[in-house]
């Protein structure tokens, strides 16, 4: 069986090849953002001697009079109402917990839930508010940086290509086959373990590779961008999507379609 190997190589940023000026003001800690004192300072900045100085490495974002620096890589900070996907690593060993939860959720299960409250030290408490949350059955998990998941009204999407996706705000993305009918009675605690058909598996693999290529080019992830990327990747074989040159081509096409759609 022939195997292809690639060695790591420095890649050019996508914007250069597109030939457009990104107009992003990139800063590192200690850089002066502006000497105008009329601005309010947001996250990632501090005031020093009549100047606004950046405290993290990232791009400057301005909303009216508020200037903040969005760091390139951030840890996930929970907010009430976020959807998160995660794996149970540890659980409380108390009597009520044993009675109530053991039957449904075990250690090692993958679940989707919503953030109910945030504690002062950063910990979040989750709840499965309705039956659409709960244990996740068969599918593929992709871990990306939390800053790449766009905040939307809903994070559960049924894509027309034949699979569904849950975009967790914490960067965990779950791709699974669309269930044929909504099983209201079973609820979110019974995992569907029926075998998945080859067609569905191919769709899921292609979606996973598309998401990986979008993340490599640092594009925001939301249902439209994933769908356009999927459609752009159809001419290629699934395993070819991860090759750098094909990845760039697909993402460029996705970018163009998104710009056309906006403009």
């Amino acid at each position, binding site marked *: 069986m022939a195997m292809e190997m690639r060695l790591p190589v*420095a890649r050019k940023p996508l914007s250069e090849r597109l030939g457009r000026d990104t107009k992003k003001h990139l800063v590192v800690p*200690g850089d002066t953002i*502006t000497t105008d004192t009329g601005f309010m300072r947001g996250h990632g900045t*501090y005031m020093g001697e009549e100047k606004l100085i950046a405290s993290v*490495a990232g791009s400057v974002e301005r909303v009216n*009079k508020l200037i903040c620096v969005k760091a390139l*890589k951030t840890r996930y900070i929970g907010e009430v109402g976020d959807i998160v996907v995660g794996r149970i690593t540890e659980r409380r060993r108390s009597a009520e917990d044993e009675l109530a939860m053991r039957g449904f959720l075990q250690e090692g299960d993958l679940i989707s839930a919503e953030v109910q409250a945030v504690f002062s030290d950063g910990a979040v408490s989750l709840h499965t508010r309705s039956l659409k949350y709960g244990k996740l059955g068969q599918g593929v998990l992709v871990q990306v940086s939390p800053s790449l998941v766009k905040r939307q009204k809903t994070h559960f999407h049924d894509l027309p290509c034949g699979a569904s996706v849950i975009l967790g705000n914490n960067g965990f993305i779950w791709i699974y086959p669309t269930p044929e009918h909504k099983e209201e009675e079973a609820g979110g605690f019974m995992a569907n373990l029926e075998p998945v058909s080859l067609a569905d598996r191919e769709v899921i693999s292609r979606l996973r590779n598309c998401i990986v290529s979008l993340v490599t080019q640092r594009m925001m992830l939301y249902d439209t961008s994933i769908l356009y990327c999927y459609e752009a990747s159809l001419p290629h074989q699934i395993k070819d999507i991860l090759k750098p040159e094909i990845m760039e081509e697909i993402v460029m096409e996705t970018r163009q379609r998104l710009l056309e759609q906006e403009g």
Partner: protein
Amino acid sequence: MEEEMHTDAKIRAETGAGSSPRGPGCSLRHFACEQNLLSRPDGSASFLQGDTSVLAGVYGPAEVKVSKEIFNKATLEVILRPKIGLPGVAEKSRERLIRNTCEAVVLGTLHPRTSITVVLQVVSDAGSGAQLLACCLNAACMALVDAGVPMRALFCGVTCALDSDGTLVLDPTSKQEKEARAVLTFAVDNVERKLLMSSTKGLFSDAEFPSSAKLGPLPGSSSAWLRPRRLRNTSSASTGNRCRGVTPRAETSWGRGPLPPPPPTHPLQPEANQRPSLASRSYGLM
């Protein structure tokens, strides 16, 4: 997915140092940095300088033990692991120097009652202690940036050696270090090129230490970090090598004399002089 920022930089002085025997001036050996290598820490970086290479990982801001917590700022912890053997006194001393440097730049007041841990692992070591310290400082800074820890400024570590006739060599090799009369390691910040930390070993005079023109209190809300004091000649002959680790809070000393060459521009800003000036970046009010 991994994001790699490979920055290979070679900085040579205009006087044109030769390829193998480097003359005096601002010539540094090859150095490279890579970020976001490790998946578990919040930030990680690998820094390679000459023959020395250090891997750094930053965890934080995270939970801190009640015994170690500080009510109004973050507790910074540095752990340095040598390439072979267990960590000893030399590692503890370097950890303290690196910790004090990091504490001077990290905005700890934004994360009170948390801990920020920097773990440094020596991957390859040319055998020179001073080079290792500079490499550790650089790796720690890059890892802190990768983790998104808010900092007042970036800092870099640089080593220089003074040989017997007073010429200053930047980034000395092990051989040059052994033959030198004094070896000095500095940590400098990128905002105003002020000195954050200096660690010296050997004999040198007032005049040879950086001039007072470039040193002074750190900018911002901090009070005067450095206070002037007359320099005492540190002798290395009889007492062995006395390493003076000077922290920003302690007293440091400077004298008058020629300024050593400016430290290299930071790897993240190789095109610093080509970036548009502030005037062209106007954030006009709408």
